């Protein structure tokens, strides 16, 4: 079994803004450990001559030319917003400084 702790799960839940009960944290700690152990099996298969990859398709350099295309109208951009002031999205005040 891998060493996933309840503290780590609580920390992750906090980072992801997911409210978990202590029971849920206990349950997820066990489940995450199983998941991590399963993924660790892949490392046993991967040998030194298999390069690490972040993508299943062996492609690189998929670019687009620097040419302006269509944009959304302001109305379209705001159409899915729960709240807006007519031109900007309105969000709850968030404490903490700008990133």
């Amino acid at each position: 079994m891998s060493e996933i702790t309840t503290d780590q799960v609580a920390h992750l839940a906090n980072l992801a803004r997911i409210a978990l009960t202590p029971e849920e944290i206990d349950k997820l700690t066990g489940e995450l450990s199983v998941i991590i152990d399963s993924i660790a099996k892949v490392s046993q298969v991967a040998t030194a001559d298999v390069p690490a990859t972040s993508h299943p398709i062996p492609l690189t350099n998929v670019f687009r030319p620097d040419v302006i295309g269509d944009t959304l109208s302001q109305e379209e951009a705001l159409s899915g917003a729960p709240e807006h002031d007519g031109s900007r999205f309105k969000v709850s005040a968030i404490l903490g400084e700008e990133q």
Partner: protein
Amino acid sequence: MAQPAELMDFDKAIELFEPVLGFEVHVELNTKTKMFSDAPNFFGGEPNTNVTPVDLGLPGSLPVVNEQAIKYSISLGLALGCEIRPSSRFARKNYFYPDLAKNYQISQYDEPIAFDGSVEVELADGRLFQIPIERAHMEEDAGKLTHVGGATGRIQGAEYSLVDYNRAGVPLVEIVTNIIYGAERDAPELAKAYVSTIRDIVRSLGISDAKMERGNLRCDANISLSPRGSGKLGTRTETKNVNSLRSVERAIRYEIQRQAAILAAGGTIIQETRHWHEDTGVTSAGRPKSDADDYRYFPEPDLLPVAPSLELIEELRAALPEAPAIRRRRLKEAWGFTDLEFQDVANSGLLVEIEETAAAGASAAQARKWWTGEIARLANAASVDASSLVSPADVAELIGLIESGELTDRLARQVLEGVVAGEGSPSAVVQSRGLAVVSDDGALIAAIDDALAAQPDVLDKIRDGKVQAAGAVIGAVMKAMKGTADAARVRELVLERAQQ
């Protein structure tokens, strides 16, 4: 609000502590479109109009990399003396803040496109300093938040925030230095010189507008103090919101004095983000570094690796503009400035402005005179950088008007004020304010007649050999014509009259 902190005398602080620096400079690239979408790279204008589903993080939308942004990033990496990674990839930096709608920023983490560089920076007295560059990586800019409610429109006490995503997705390169030791008492000046050098590099590459006051170029300054002889690094703070070259210098100086006072009193420095306040010249505590800084980076699954060919890298390397040090030597020679004059220009951070003004047709000597003189004076008075006040093209036009005799220096200063106030180009200001030199003899003679009528003995004095008496008439004419008279011509006319 920011309260002035206890400060230690700067010299005393440097005696007790060694300042250790580090900089993160963000450069907005001036591509036509955004980093991952084909929306116009244009911030400003009507909010939320330069956006696509990608910039809003709408479900099902997928980013595609802007090829020009890759080329610009490689060019910048090369200009910083960096290695270009044969294969680099993007990563998701996860955080919850509404300046990006996706809840993550696409950045680069373990595989930045450029790494291991060095930038030569020149101090005011000509000493050179090598700034080690750890990496330069690509990422996207975030949207603009406006906090509404609360006493001052600041985030504290705000009731809600309004978000404009026009800037979200604008291509950025973040340049990160290694830890910089040995700056000693030059630390504030070195900080300014470094940012100024980066600005000159990106401008000579033509890859960014690089205007600090507009946020095209932003500097986060890290600073810590190491007690002399301790051999240990102190706790660092990261100062943000430093929006001009002069504030970079002031902010570093302030942080050295503030941290030294705390350490000397037996206190500890809190590792935190601090905000620079240009108006009061102090920094204030922002967000403490904490668990929230756990960004859980992972490779961006929606994008493929960037693997520039050696041919492309060499092509871009061959197209690089000359290195800043070589450029300085060439300009000094071409302009024929003395060491002192050139040093003055280099220290003012106005090399590019003067170069561009000269390229627009003005003489380098006149360009230097105006940029380091009147324009610098106006900039100091307004606490902004001179480059933000007026464009090199406008200065060249102004100098042209002086050289063609349409403006005197005195009138030119008034025209400059008009240009700075946003009244248009120099010739437009001349028109709208009616400031052109009057060289029409008829108008001058009429004014001279009036002045002589009030001072009838002047002509006799001149005839008696007291030529300086003409000054009183010239003064009266200039006053009557609100400075638009050509003083030299008025003098000629008065002396002619005395001979009649």
